[in-house]
């Protein structure tokens, strides 16, 4: 009913925003039908109401009053007709906004009645699915963590030790420190936040389940380890070593040596595309499909040494930070950056994209942390901090961690609204902080430092409720295997990496530029190759005859081709979307030859 009302209302803005629909949520109309059926017995209700009115009249009520009561009864009946008896509670508009897929299509923009009805029905379903998704929030069991001081003091003064003392035992075990000698360390958490990978620059690589502290493997690769990343499951990881990229399994056995990736500084793994992206010392950007072992794309960015790299979960693009202060976004299908943003005035020292892929935080030499909206390409916030953070990370709940020297500063709610001061600060005992990374679905920040690793508690940083079908920290081996197969089946093709991931659901309307380009292409077509071997039916001779046949066919093809080119040229005269140019105003006549010939251009010049 609500959707109908909305459909009637004219909406602001002329542009029809195409909206993407999650069909997994749309199959509820049956339920709705059922609910519709749940209507009161109207006759019964009227009868009782009339009886009530009658009883009152017998008490000496006036006739006019009776009619009024009757009217009221009718009104109420009408209302009862409109409203189902059991109506689900209204959903808060703020909650609804979170699950909404945009404004929707204006029904009025369609002329045909059928289409109007069809679109209106579809819109209703979409609205309903959003409402149901919002209602589902009730079923979520966990609530987000928090840290609040009851007085006027700042939370940033609270020590890690105090937090550990105050929280429960299980949470307290999530804080731990590892003093290691082969640093500086790079770290990586799996997507479900269960496993941790540590890679020391001097060759120490360790993988373990950090929650149960169970070691999976610990090896020394006897080479520099510059970066490392988990692949699609906790069974495989890639390390960027001195020369090439290597892939190891969970027991530390070397599975592959990827020689296409040379002198790599940073790695990123795109889980839905099964792509391992690498940025090299020489400015090469490379995408490797790890499911088939093929390089999807690899090219020179011409941007110099690529030291800062991050992936955008929203659309699968790769962001690179450059010494000019520019952040560029890349897709494997385009050899030019999809977008360039001047995020900093000075060289970019660190960079992070939030897990939802909406915002990018970068820090420059001038000690400014700038936060940009990637989708709108607009600056959001700018903070001046003490010291130059060399590592940034944004958590699922929008908590920003900045590592600077041996200090890690954490800011909360700093993206959409300006934060007044740090939320927490932490002094790392393992010397200089090299990498900070929030653990997904946990209130934990991992810090890879010069002399080891520390895991600290940051209440309120992680998403409390996970979706088991997406990332499940408690998944079993069988579930992992099933998910792996399913993910491989649903591997998103690399061609679909674009700035706007919803582009595929929209109508492809070629622009004027595209049309002109297509026309131009028609003019410069290549003649087709005729590679024809006539079948030799009676095996004898045939050499000369075959050659003749071939010649004939070639000439025919050539003629056809010339015809086609001619036709294309005449078609070119037709303006795009317009009528044919009138070439001959009057029909040609025999006497035309006596007319004065048009002068040549150079003659005019003289």
């Amino acid at each position: 009913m609500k959707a109908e009302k909305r459909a009637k209302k004219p909406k602001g803005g002329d542009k029809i925003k195409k909206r993407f629909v999650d069909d997994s949520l749309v199959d509820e109309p049956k339920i709705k039908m059922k609910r519709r059926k749940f209507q009161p017995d109207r006759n019964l209700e009227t009868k009782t109401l009339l009886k009530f009115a009658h009883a009152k009249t017998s008490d000496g009520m006036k006739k006019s009053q009776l009619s009024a009561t009757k009217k009221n009864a009718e009104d109420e009946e009408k209302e009862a007709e409109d409203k189902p008896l059991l109506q689900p509670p209204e959903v808060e508009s703020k909650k609804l906004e979170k699950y909404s897929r945009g404004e929707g299509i204006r029904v009025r923009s369609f002329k045909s009645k059928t289409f109007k009805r069809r679109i209106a029905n579809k819109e209703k379903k979409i609205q309903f699915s959003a409402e149901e998704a919002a209602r589902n929030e009730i079923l979520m069991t966990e609530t987000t963590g928090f840290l609040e001081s009851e007085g006027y003091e700042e939370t940033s003064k609270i020590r890690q030790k105090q937090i550990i003392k105050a929280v429960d035992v299980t949470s307290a075990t999530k804080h731990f420190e590892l003093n290691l000698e082969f640093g500086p360390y790079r770290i990586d958490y799996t997507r479900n936040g269960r496993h941790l990978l540590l890679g020391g620059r001097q060759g120490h690589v360790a993988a373990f389940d950090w929650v149960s502290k169970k070691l999976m493997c610990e090896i020394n690769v006897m080479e520099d380890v510059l970066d490392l990343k988990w692949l699609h499951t906790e069974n495989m990881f890639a390390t960027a070593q001195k020369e090439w990229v290597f892939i190891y399994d969970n027991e530390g056995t070397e599975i592959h040596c990827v020689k296409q990736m040379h002198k790599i500084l940073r790695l990123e793994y795109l889980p839905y595309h099964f792509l391992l992206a690498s940025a090299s010392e020489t400015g090469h950007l490379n995408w490797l499909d790890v499911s088939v072992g093929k390089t999807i794309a690899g090219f020179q960015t011409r941007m110099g040494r690529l030291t800062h790299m991050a992936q955008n979960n929203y659309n699968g693009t790769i962001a690179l930070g450059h010494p000019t202060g520019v952040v560029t976004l890349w897709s494997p299908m385009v050899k030019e950056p999809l977008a360039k943003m001047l995020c900093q005035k000075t060289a970019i020292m660190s960079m992070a994209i939030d897990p939802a892929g909406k915002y990018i935080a970068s820090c420059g030499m001038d000690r400014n942390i700038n936060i940009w909206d990637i989708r709108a390409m607009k600056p959001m916030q700018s903070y001046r901090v003490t010291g130059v953070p060399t590592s940034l990370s944004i958590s699922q709940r929008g908590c920003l961690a900045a590592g600077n020297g041996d200090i890690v500063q954490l800011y909360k709610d700093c993206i959409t609204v300006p934060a007044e001061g740090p939320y927490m600060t932490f002094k790392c005992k393992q010397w200089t902080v090299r990498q900070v990374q929030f653990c997904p679905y946990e209130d934990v920040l991992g810090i890879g430092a010069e002399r080891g690793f520390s895991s600290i508690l940051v209440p309120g940083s992680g998403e409390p409720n996970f979706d088991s079908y997406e990332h499940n920290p408690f998944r079993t081996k069988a579930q992992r295997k099933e998910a792996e197969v399913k993910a491989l089946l649903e591997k998103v093709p690399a061609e679909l990496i674009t700035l706007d991931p919803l582009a595929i659901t929209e109508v492809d309307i070629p622009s004027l530029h595209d049309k002109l380009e297509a026309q131009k292409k028609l003019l410069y077509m290549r003649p087709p190759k005729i590679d024809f071997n006539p079948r030799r039916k009676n095996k004898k001779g045939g050499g000369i005859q075959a050659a003749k046949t071939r010649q004939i066919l070639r000439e025919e093809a050539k003629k056809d081709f010339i015809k086609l080119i001619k036709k294309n040229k005449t078609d070119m005269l037709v303006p795009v979307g317009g009528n044919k140019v009138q070439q001959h105003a009057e029909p040609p006549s025999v006497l035309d030859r006596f007319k004065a010939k048009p002068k040549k251009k150079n003659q005019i010049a003289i």
Partner: protein
Amino acid sequence: MRPSIYNILLVGGVVLLAVGQVPASDEKGDYSHCEKFSGYFMKYNVCAKGRYLVDEEAVKFVLEIDNQKYFDKHISVTSLPGKHSKTQIFTMKVKMLCRNPDQYIRETKNDLHKMQRNYDPDLHPLEAPREYKQALNAVKLERVFAKPFLCCLDGHRDGVTCVAKHPERLSTVASGSYNGEVIIWNLASRKEVARIKAHEGSVKGMTFDPSGENLITCGDDKTIKIWNTDSDDCKEHKASSIIVCTNSIFSISHSRDSKTFVTGGEVVQLWDGVKVIPDVTTHWGVDPIHCVQFNPVETSLIGACSSDRSVIIYDTRQATPVRKLTMKMKANKMCWNPMEAFNFTAASEDYNLYSFDCRNLSKPLVMHVGHTSAVIDVDYCPTGNEFVSGSYDKTIRIYESHKTTSREVYHTKRMQRLTCVAYTHDSRYIISGSDEMNLRLWKAIAWQKQGVIKPREKAALEYNNSLKEKFMTHPQIKRIANHRQVPRHIFNAAKEHKIIYQKIKRKEFNRKAHSKPGTVHIKASKLKAIVKEDE
């Protein structure tokens, strides 16, 4: 009243202790009622409910509020080092995310896994590309599982001429052949139930009466025979009644709600149950009628196809026929839409089928193209959304009733010219009879899984279907969904027909372009098939 501590502040080695009821509005704390304690303290830790303990370094230090005892006198405060002259003590609230594994892991192996859902769009990135890929997979799987042929029912000793569906039993079907035999089949067991030597010469038409007890057949020997299919008589080739006619009969159809049935031959005759003489005899023109069909909804309407290329509509309430439509080519068969009573589809000799609204016969609603030879038979799906057609080009096609092109094309290497097709009453199967003595059973949806489908599987199928529908206009998905492998003769013929069609179109266009404007009118292809409509 007991004092409650509002805040503790240590400034310059002096502990300020706020006691008493401090107003809530005063957030900064009112320290006017403070008692002052001097001394040096290192660290403080906060415990619950007014009880303040110090760190390990000075555990003995206790603040008792309940007993009005603020400091334990046993501690020598002065002995603590005074480096930290400005330390704050906090009262704070902390909550960490902590999941109890019991809530997320199933207890025993026999339990279902506990699955959590969070529909937050941020947790499900790349929705559109992932769904696109899923749709692509779904449509590929659809093609993988597209195995429509179920079984072949062999038993006839000559080509099959006609089939009749039992109105009440899904699995009972009767088929007649050129040698005068009628076989009653059980589709579930795929076996013949009864074999009747019904006529001399071929069986021309068959129909069940609404109760399904009697099967009425007509044949080349100018007789109409009524068989009681439930009794053993029919197995002994004994008809319950025989009507001998004066003229040959080619087609028969029973009304859905009364005892009347109609026969078409040299004339159209209406019979009432057991009577030997027809109630009504009527005709329009001189050519024989080779197909009559009672309308299943508007039960007084009868459609007939005549050899003079016409389709005639009769009304049993009227003495004379209602309408006559003459087409360019003969209509081999017509079938009423079981849901839209006024619509019917005619299978034409010109390779196409035409859907008409019987109120306006001069303009077909849709022309259904695709067959590469004459269309012999057509039958509607009980939902009225689809119909099946059998053609002389050895293929069966399924059309959606409002669409021009076919949804599906079925063929096998061994199946010859189709003579009859039927859509079963549950709209799930198709029966086809062909020249080479066989009856074939097909699935109406080629990729549908037979047998019981479990709820999860059903949900997955439904999800895939909606995805397919959503992305159906994408070129790749459309290509895969629409592609059908057809025998070479069909492929070549279709190619040829396309060339011919283009040639005609080109010629029309050129003629129009080179004529005086307004003199040449191009007729739509579907209108070309119509000659005239008589009333």
